């Protein structure tokens, strides 16, 4: 057995890697920079976790989302891999300092981009042996990408500061221009590239045009009733989440729950576990659900509100059909809904008429508090505040008038980019004569090589109807005595 297989067996309990994972692992083991565009749910994390565990030294994994970090850590802990930890702003000071103390004994450190840009963290990292850096969701680094985060731009300089370790970038969705940008910003030199098609052949694509909110609700109920799931319904607000959950609980025979940021941690974890475990059929959620959620048998993703661009769409439907079985995705398209991504877009940009006030605020606050002050004093969103804070930090000596002018231009440019992306999304939804799959692939510079069957509504496919005989409502709840016994000993007390 070679070392790789041995380690794979020891840490993950597998005997072999999948064909496309193999070369990535090899490249990273030999220390070559690597760019990988892999569809979500394809077992991406093992590509860097395995080499990280085999290397002598620390691997930093830059991950933008708390839930992603948490999920991966939980999975590692479940596999009894202990040399892994996270560092982010949601941890208590004690937790943070505990992580920093045991840095030299760690193999994997999941870190948020904003934490990575703190000077004292960089200093601490210089003291240990950083052998590899992994950037997850690497498209966030590009301003041509759909989720541009200024913090990501600081990763490149940190790489140099900690001694130029090998760099790996992963993303599920990157157009060719975003790929170029990733390589440039992360200072990758002649990286190995593994670019997979964004096409998920086993997911059939549907768009259903509705003319009113009422019709949308009716359609939702009808579709869900005929789809046993498991499935996800994406909406954009907490309120809508709760409203649709109630509607589906009343009108469908399925076990339905809601998941959004307004729930407490315990409830969030519980619902996630219930869904994984198969206790729930449908989860109505905001897009924070599903990030890094490894449920292989999700049968459908239904967008009650459409996403702001094709990249988000690809990412969100990518949570279906990971087990390779036939799955489907549908959008309930209501023209007026465009207001939602539009408003989201606006809120993520600094308001042009408040730039002056923002400059004053920033001038009177300490650098590391600029973002927080903009959020608290001006009511900006985090994205907007970070955007501004970043440019102020980058150009500390520019005159105010010049800077503001510059900023306004930057904001307009961002808006223009975002509007363009939204327009592409809407065009895709409105399209009524070209294969949806072909059109979607075009956005990513790909051609459709082979049309799967079923493909999309335009190609004549329809949403599968699977009438359930009888309904699946929860059986009468067991008395607590029985439940307690099952909790401890399982359904049969086999060890008695």
């Amino acid at each position, binding site marked *: 057995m070679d070392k790789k297989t041995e380690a794979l067996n020891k840490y993950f309990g597998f005997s072999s890697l999948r064909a496309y994972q193999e070369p990535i692992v090899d490249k990273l083991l030999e220390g070559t920079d690597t760019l990988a565009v892999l569809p979500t749910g394809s077992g991406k994390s093992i590509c860097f976790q395995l080499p990280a565990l085999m290397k002598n030294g620390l691997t930093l994994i830059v991950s933008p989302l708390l839930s992603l970090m948490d999920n991966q850590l*939980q999975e590692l*802990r*479940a*596999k*009894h891999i202990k040399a892994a930890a996270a560092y982010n702003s949601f941890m208590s000071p004690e*937790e943070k300092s505990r992580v920093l103390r045991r840095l030299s004994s760690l193999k994997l450190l999941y870190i948020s981009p904003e934490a990575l840009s703190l000077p004292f963290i960089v200093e601490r990292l210089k003291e240990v042996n950083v052998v590899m850096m992994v950037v997850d969701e690497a498209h966030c680094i590009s301003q041509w990408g759909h989720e541009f985060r200024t913090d990501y731009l600081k990763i490149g300089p940190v790489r140099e500061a900690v001694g130029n370790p090998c760099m790996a970038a992963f993303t599920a969705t990157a157009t060719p221009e975003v790929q170029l940008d990733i390589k440039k910003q992360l200072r990758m030199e002649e990286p190995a590239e593994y670019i997979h098609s964004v096409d998920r052949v086993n997911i059939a694509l549907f768009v259903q045009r509705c003319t009113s909110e009422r019709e949308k609700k009716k359609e939702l109920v009808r579709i869900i009733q005929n789809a046993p799931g498991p499935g996800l319904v994406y909406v954009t607000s907490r309120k809508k989440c709760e409203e649709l959950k109630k509607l589906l609980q009343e009108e469908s025979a399925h076990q339905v*729950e809601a998941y959004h940021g307004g729930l407490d*941690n*315990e*409830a969030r*974890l*519980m*619902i996630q*576990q*219930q869904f994984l*475990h198969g*206790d729930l059929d449908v989860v109505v959620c905001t897009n924070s659900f599903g990030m890094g959620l490894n449920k292989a048998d999700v049968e459908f993703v239904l967008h009650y509100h459409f996403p702001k661009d094709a990249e988000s769409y690809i990412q969100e439907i990518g949570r279906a059909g990971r087990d390779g079985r036939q799955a489907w995705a549908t959008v309930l398209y209501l023209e007026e809904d465009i207001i939602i991504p539009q408003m989201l877009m606006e809120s993520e940009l600094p308001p042009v008429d408040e730039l002056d006030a923002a400059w004053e605020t920033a001038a009177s606050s300490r650098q590391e508090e600029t973002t927080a002050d903009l959020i608290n004093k001006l009511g900006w969103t985090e994205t907007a505040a970070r955007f501004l804070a970043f440019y102020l930090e980058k150009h500390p000596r520019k005159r105010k008038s010049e800077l503001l002018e510059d900023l306004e231009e930057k904001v307009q440019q961002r808006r223009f980019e975002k509007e363009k992306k939204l327009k592409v999304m809407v065009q895709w939804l409105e399209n009524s004569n070209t294969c949806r799959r072909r059109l979607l692939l075009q956005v990513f510079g790909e051609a459709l090589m082979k049309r799967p069957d079923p493909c999309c509504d335009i190609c004549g496919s329809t949403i599968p109807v699977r009438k359930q005989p009888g309904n699946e409502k929860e059986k009468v*709840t067991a008395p*607590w*005595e029985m*439940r*307690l*016994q*099952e*909790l*401890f*000993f*399982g*359904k049969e007390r086999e*060890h008695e």
Partner: protein
Amino acid sequence: MLFQEAMILIALKRLRGERTDASAYHLLSGKRSSQTITDAKWFQSKDLFGALPKLDKLQFERITASLYHRGWIEPGGVPAESISASMRPWEKLVEEAGFDGWAYRDTGHQFWKRIALLIQTLSHLYQRKKQFVPIIQDHASQQWVKQKLSSWGEGKYTAMKKLYEEMADCLRDMTELQAFIFVYKLTGAEILGKTTEQISRLQHREQEEVDYLLQGSIHTLIKNAENQPETVLHECLDTGGTPELTVTAQKTLDFINKGFTLEAVARSRGLKVSTIEDHFVEIAGEIKEFSIDQLVPPKQQEAIRQAAASLDTFKLKTLKEQLDADTTYFAIRLALAKGGQKSGQKNRSIE
């Protein structure tokens, strides 16, 4: 009548119009201040302390206003007689719940985390399932469970069966509803726990009520465990056992122990004398060994307690009017906080 309404009404009833509505709010939301803690004690309302932890001031005011509007609360701030029949089942619920937020709020949270994680872990081990996502993410609890398991070693399944028996015994003494809530919240190897909302749907109860009853069942388990040193449940208790003082009152006590006078504490800490007085009252109520005889002559203490008993009131103003002119409010509060010897009262004696 909704759960929150009922709890507010019960709180106001207990306070007997001798405190403002805001005091009821502080009591129900469980504010750790000297005044609220003393109120909880005087008015025998530890079972309401922190009963509605998520209630915010605005909600409270909206509900109270509507209760006044409906005539359920009289202008004097006490519940109307006409409502007492509808309040009774709720009072019974509070009586049976075993909730004691005053003593067990924080230990209760910790106890729950330990028990929940311990059961999840044991049941996975017992059913030979190694991998699971801990439902309790808290590091301290995870460390605790780890230590417990290694200290039990081979005896862990014996401990587990014992724990099961102890819990079943204790739950049998609770109401069916409380036992149900507690058990359905737990997670094992094959079954996942339910969220508060899911339980509230299953039982057709409000979420706030389910939360209160869950905490009540946890507090009951703790109370039982405290008296049974040989049990596994007892091992789950935190043995630290610190007295229930607010952090700031604890600081004041540290100064007192170094021999500072009240005024000197106020000066050194840069706080108002009245604030330090609040701390004294809190300390007097909590620390048995803390004597107030230097501050209030024993004779005056006795007079105050007798006045409170004969007038059957804790209203400071009424008491002050009844007592000698040199009796200060501070003296009255101290004497009542120390309490204990109050005579002539049946079920309202101060503990």
